[in-house]
């Protein structure tokens, strides 16, 4: 006669369903915070990469002086390219602020030079500024160092805040799981006592709960991580729809690092649940003879 053996612990009940929801929500928030933290750092890198080495020269003078300034830039140590922007390019830069009507033909525009410094040539902008002053050309050299440092500081702070949020959410998840495990154990005390009196070793009894809560944590964490992936994908979709200047926005690219964060969430949830279950069960068993 073929008989099946039910698990020694009853299948999940309402308490575990509630715990599943809580762990799922916490993992969703933790994974999303992790993605935000990583994207904040990525955005900071992207912004600084974009502006590092870019030098903008605004010349208040004639076309000839502008051309001289370009030639001076090309001969400045550390600068690898320089060119004067055409009027059309300058108009394009102003279009977002002046609207579709564009720039009136008779509006005088500053002469702009876009130059690029070699990596590591941090003083090239200052050197060019000195050369232009010495040559009597009225110009302003902007190598974006000041504001890019401010942006980097701001994004680093945002990333740190997100990391702290991840840490807090993780700690909250562990505390909630421990609390829920204890509540579940109280409800299962009859089983624990019976197994204990039947001669089951502490590790055997603890193992039943550890496996149960490991699976619960992993499954709830996986659902939470998938929801976070969906939310991230939605944000990415919205960002992509905006316009070409997506590099100004956090880089939700769903890269390998993002995948790692999403993959880690269920594992961390599962291990946290398992450890919480083990500690709680063993503590409870230690109160028995």
């Amino acid at each position, binding site marked *: *006669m073929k*008989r099946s*053996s*039910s698990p*020694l612990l*009853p*299948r999940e009940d309402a308490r575990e369903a509630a715990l599943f929801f809580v762990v799922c929500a916490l993992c969703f928030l933790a994974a999303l915070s992790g993605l935000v933290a990583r994207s904040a750092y990525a955005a900071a890198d992207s912004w600084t990469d974009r502006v590092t080495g870019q030098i903008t020269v605004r010349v208040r003078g004639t076309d000839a002086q502008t051309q001289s300034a370009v030639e001076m830039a090309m001969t400045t140590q550390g600068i690898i390219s320089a060119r004067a922007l055409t009027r059309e390019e300058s108009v394009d830069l102003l279009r977002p602020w002046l609207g579709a009507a564009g720039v009136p033909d008779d509006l005088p525009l500053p002469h702009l030079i876009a130059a690029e410094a070699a990596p590591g040539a941090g003083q090239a902008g200052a050197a060019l500024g000195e050369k232009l002053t010495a040559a009597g050309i009225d110009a302003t050299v902007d190598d974006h160092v000041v504001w890019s440092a401010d942006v980097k500081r701001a994004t680093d702070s945002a990333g740190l805040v997100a990391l702290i949020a991840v840490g807090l959410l993780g700690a909250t998840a562990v505390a909630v799981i421990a609390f829920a495990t204890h509540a579940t154990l109280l409800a299962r005390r*009859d*089983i624990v*006592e*019976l*197994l*204990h*009196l*039947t*001669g*089951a*070793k*502490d590790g*055997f009894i603890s193992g039943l709960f550890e496996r149960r809560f490991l699976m619960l944590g992993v499954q709830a964490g996986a659902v939470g991580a998938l929801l976070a992936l969906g939310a991230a994908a939605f944000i990415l979709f919205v960002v992509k729809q905006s316009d070409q200047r997506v590099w100004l926005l956090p880089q939700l690219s769903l890269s390998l690092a993002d995948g790692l964060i999403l993959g880690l969430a269920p594992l961390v949830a599962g291990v946290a649940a398992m450890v919480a279950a083990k500690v709680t069960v063993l503590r409870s068993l230690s109160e*028995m*003879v």
Partner: protein
Amino acid sequence: MRERDETLDEPAVRFDRVSLSYGPDADVLADVSLQLRPGSMTFLTGPSGAGKSTLLKMAYLALKPSTGRVSLFGIDTGKLTRPTLARMRKRIGVVFQEFRLLDHLTAYENVALPLRVHGDSEKRYRDDVVELLKWVGLGDRLDARPATLSGGEKQRVAIARAVVVKPDIIIADEPTGNVDEEMGDRLLHLFRELNRRLNTTVLIATHDMAMVRKAKADMLRLADGMVVRVAIPPAAPEEAPA
């Protein structure tokens, strides 16, 4: 055959001046001493609240005495490590007064529980468990869950679970409290068979004096926190068989 060197000359169960209290003026048992020789069958009687269940709990290692010593097979259980205590518990079959069946398991699975805990494979024990359940009259209730069983049926499942591992000691708390006389006789017969054939030490707490008289076994009486060995009293005229 299980190693039982330590049991040859030692009592299976021994209480040396055992007391249990839950506070300064809350003694449940006071200075109790008793010995059960291996292979004996003993009934523990006494008025309700005398501490019979407490005494049994200490014998099946669910409680530690406040003072005194509880020994099983000559081993002072107070000195055992947790793993050794767990191994010792595997040698004890317990019939709890409140049955303690697991609601999510079937009658078959409840009886097989100790075997699963011991790590036995179902292939090995399946037929034994089915046979045992048939013997206690539950052959047609193998897949029934406790919620669908009557009190008497639950009690029989609990007894089957206690004896399925062929323990060295069986401790039963009111094992026939919820069964009719015929089933009571069958269960008593089961305990006696285990006692005689397997030399199992049996300790039964009961109010059922008719069962005690039928068993013709030793009888201890617990009253006022003290245990005394007493002769089995004769049946009152209204209890005597027709």
